């Protein structure tokens, strides 16, 4: 190379020397590269070990949420009202099926009907969170289940499981009071968010159901229980390889709820309503326990559990008798003549003499003629109740004005909502002067004397619901205490006991006057006589009929015929037995079109019979030989 170089290399040596240096360099580069790999290895395996170890665990284990069995709901005697039944189902897990279309094709070959719902299934599968199975078909027959189970191991992401499904053995009997469960909707999620909480993960589980109405809704959190986790070891395809028992948590079943209702009375109530529309509430007038609380017509809550077909839902929603509404607390009606004892009490409290005679000429005149139900002649308070004389109570109402009536009405339970663990209650309306002042403009803020006659016979602005009516009769029957209603007897182990009731605050003598009037209603000549005879020995009911006008009569039929929606409401309140009041009942038959005695009373009688026959003490009385002093010969309604 260089001439000045002291040592002369021949060409071969020069090539060799250069090669040796270069190779040494290349070797150095390669070994440095390996050193970098070693350093990287140390970084990953020693410095970051913890992070990757937890990532490996997260990869490997999959916490599968398990819906807790929902708490049972039973009646007062332990009869199951809402339970859970097993259901075989086939589900798909989105992140595990590589090809949803192909998987659904295969499932459709085993279960042909799933092909029709394919679109909906795909939508639901795509909406579900990761690794959550989405049911493709529920309630498989054993044969179908066996067929699917045979192939399930070859279908990645397909699960054949036995789940629990909410079940209401009595169908529509408890549909409104007990309510039903349904899939969690966006609105449920929003409702939780509005309370400032994050919706629990279980909300997104396709097997989870949330309480939607009645007790199912108000006690939803207690009934829900605590979801469990099953920690399973899965492979990259999501196939379960094993279970980690230590990482799993069993689901805690929801609390069992015992209601005060009686299943037999409840079923009887729905039976006696047949096609008619209305509500009935029966209570124990000593304890306040609600024994029967039904709304008719009803619907099958079981259909909500897996989703009501829209055709059926539309039919329910469009039906004028409104099966979806809980008429026991969510519908308000004018109480009609059932309100008259309130007016009587208000009068007595102001010093009015119940023996005062008012002569009924068949009409009351105040600016115009207010018709009476008949031409009753001279009436005292007891007879006015017996005959349901409008003139008598119109006279009292006009004399007193609205405020004393409203005061008694509120004390008797009207115009308020009871904390019995039931949503959707409507307060109704107990009108008085203050209410008119607040809710009307100008001239109309005054209470007109012409508005009082209607008030006296339970019409006009007055609106009550069936539960309030039942509380009112219970307090009338009890006579001494402000009976409060109770629907939920216990949740889990915790008894929901009622404290001692407040005193009603009226002289029992005054209450007795009303009771005597109501006893005459169901006695010979009373408005409710024919249809209120129990036929159980010497046991009798006391009651009060009512017919509430739905609109101003313009036709000759006077609310008895014509369009269903134009007919009068028929009401009946009753308690019994009269010598030892135990059970009180209120019943509203919407647009019954006749009278409370004809339409409502027979229904109330049947339910009361059921309650009395289930009461061991009263049943003993029925079966015992007749007591020596029968005031009234037992008569059976013709």
């Amino acid at each position, binding site marked *: 190379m260089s001439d000045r170089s002291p040592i002369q290399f021949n060409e071969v040596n020069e090539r060799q020397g250069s090669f040796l240096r270069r190779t040494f360099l290349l070797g150095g580069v390669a070994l440095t590269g390996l050193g970098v790999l070693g350093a990287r290895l140390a970084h990953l395996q*020693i410095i970051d*070990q913890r992070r990757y170890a937890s990532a490996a665990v997260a990869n490997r284990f999959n916490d599968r949420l398990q819906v807790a069995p929902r708490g049972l709901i039973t009646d007062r005697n332990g009869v199951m009202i809402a339970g859970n039944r097993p259901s075989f189902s086939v589900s798909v897990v989105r992140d595990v099926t590589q090809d949803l279309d192909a998987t659904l094709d295969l499932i459709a070959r085993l279960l042909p009907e799933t092909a029709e719902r394919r679109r909906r299934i795909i939508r639901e599968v795509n909406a579900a969170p990761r690794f959550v199975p989405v049911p493709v078909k529920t309630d498989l027959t054993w044969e179908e289940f066996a067929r699917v189970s045979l192939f399930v191991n070859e279908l990645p992401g397909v699960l054949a499981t036995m789940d629990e499904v909410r079940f209401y053995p009595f169908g529509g009997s408890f549909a409104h009071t007990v309510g039903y469960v349904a899939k969690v909707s966006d609105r449920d999620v929003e409702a939780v968010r509005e309370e400032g909480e994050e919706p629990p993960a279980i909300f997104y589980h396709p097997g989870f159901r949330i309480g939607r109405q009645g007790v199912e809704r108000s006690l939803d959190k207690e009934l829900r229980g605590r979801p469990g986790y099953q920690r399973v070891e899965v492979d990259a395809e999501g196939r379960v390889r094993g279970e980690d028992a230590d990482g799993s948590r069993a689901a805690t079943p929801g609390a069992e709820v015992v209601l005060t209702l009686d299943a037999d009375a409840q079923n009887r109530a729905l039976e006696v309503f047949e096609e008619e529309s209305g509500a009935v509430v029966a209570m124990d007038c000593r304890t306040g326990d609600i024994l029967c609380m039904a709304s008719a017509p009803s619907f099958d809550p079981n259909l909500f559990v897996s989703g009501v077909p829209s055709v059926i839902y539309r039919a329910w929603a469009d039906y004028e008798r409104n099966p979806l509404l809980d008429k026991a607390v969510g519908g308000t009606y004018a109480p009609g003549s059932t309100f008259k004892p309130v007016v009587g009490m208000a009068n007595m409290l102001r010093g009015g003499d119940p023996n005062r005679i008012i002569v009924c000429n068949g009409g009351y005149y105040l600016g115009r003629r207010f018709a009476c139900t008949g031409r009753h002649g001279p009436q005292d308070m007891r007879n006015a109740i017996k005959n349901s004389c409008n003139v008598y109570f119109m006279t009292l109402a006009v004399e007193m004005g609205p405020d004393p009536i409203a005061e008694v009405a509120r004390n008797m339970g009207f115009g308020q909502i009871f904390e019995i663990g039931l949503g959707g209650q409507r307060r109704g309306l107990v009108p008085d002067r203050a209410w008119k002042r607040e809710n009307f403009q100008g001239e109309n803020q005054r209470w007109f004397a012409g508005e009082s006659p209607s008030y006296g016979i339970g019409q006009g602005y007055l609106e009550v619901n069936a539960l309030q009516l039942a509380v009112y009769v219970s307090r009338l029957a009890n006579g001494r205490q402000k009976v409060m209603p109770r629907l939920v007897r216990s949740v889990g182990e915790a008894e929901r006991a009622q404290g001692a009731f407040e005193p009603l605050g009226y002289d029992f003598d005054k209450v007795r006057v009303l009771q005597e009037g109501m006893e005459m209603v169901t006695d010979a000549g009373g408005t409710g006589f024919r249809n209120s005879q129990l036929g159980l020995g010497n046991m009798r009911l006391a009651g009060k009929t009512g017919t509430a006008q739905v609109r101003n009569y313009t036709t000759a039929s006077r609310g008895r015929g014509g369009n269903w929606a134009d007919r009068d409401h028929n009401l009946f309140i009753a308690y019994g037995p009269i010598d030892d009041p135990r059970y009180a009942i209120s019943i509203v038959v919407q647009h019954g079109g006749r009278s409370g005695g004809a339409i409502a009373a027979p229904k109330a009688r049947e339910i009361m019979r059921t309650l009395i026959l289930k009461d061991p003490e009263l049943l003993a009385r029925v079966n015992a030989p007749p007591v020596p002093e029968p005031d009234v010969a037992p008569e059976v309604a013709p």
Partner: protein
Amino acid sequence: MTASAISRPGERDRLPVKLGQIDWRLAGLIALIGGAGAMMLYSVAGESWAPWAGNHLIRFGAVFVVMLGLALVDIRWWYAAAYPLYAVGLLLLIAVELFGETRMGATRWLDLGFTSLQPSEIMKLGIVLALARWYHGASAQEAKWHWKLIIPALMIAVPVVLVAHQPDLGTSLLILFTGVAIMFAAGLSWRIVLTGIAGIMVVAPMMYFFVLHDYQRARVDVLLNPEADPSGAGYHIAQAKIAIGSGGLLGKGYGLGSQSQLNFLPEKHTDFIFPTLAEEFGFLGAFFILAIYGAIIAISLRIASLSHNHFGRLAAAGVTATFALYVLINGAMVMGLAPVVGVPMPLLSYGGTVMLTVMIGFGLIQSVRVHRYLELPKSRGVI
């Protein structure tokens, strides 16, 4: 046998002497890696010889014998075979381009009727031998900087372009880097080397935007930001890193690597065998294997430097470069330092073709050692 005895004419051609000249330390280290491969394949198959471990071991035994056989082949035969092998490789690559069989979107295979062949594998050896032969005949000055360098440059460029077009980026880069390494070892001017490095820095980003296929570009994207799409393209790297990292210092134990046993690790028996090893044997096990690879590379380069003929030196260095590139690219790939290019870990990964190529290469290295005292004339037609 004494040192003086071996210098006796004809003594070196005796079979027992030749066998004695084989570098048995190197052969032992190679066998160690092959055995480790079989062991890992047994583990990832769920403690089963089928489907991989048994095959791997049988194949390894076969190619080990091939290596020993090739070690005894006179270096002059290698020299004579250099250009023909390269020519055959080139023709087959062109044939693939014209009639190749397409599998998984890449045209790499040539259907020979009884078996299918990847001509790019032949080219890995062909390029080493052909360049070694060319440089053997070239002067120091020609190797440094001369217009004739266009010949080795073309010898490299043509197969690189053909393989890249298949497309097989991994093999193409392997051939390119091997060729460049030989040119460098042969004495390429430092000025050119540095200019080349600077040039790559400029050209690489342009390659990214204009030359790479979409899937190749995606792999580079994933490398730069693997967490962006952990279930998509970044899945391989993410899962491999989890496997390696969760192994810790001592590993989870043989057969207990959850990442590979539960199939989170893709290609766990081929390209991603090393993370499985790192997961089950931890840093100590993985570093031990890297050290063995380092020892193999060091011994091979020492063999290259001890050869008395330039052809042998360059051929051995070239094969070592290929081998080292395999190890470095695969290692960097599974540890998230390089894009996923589909290069296996030699001798550890399952796969017959690469194993055969690598072991033929080691046969050549052993042959260089056995025949290290042979002086090859610069002229052509040595035999």
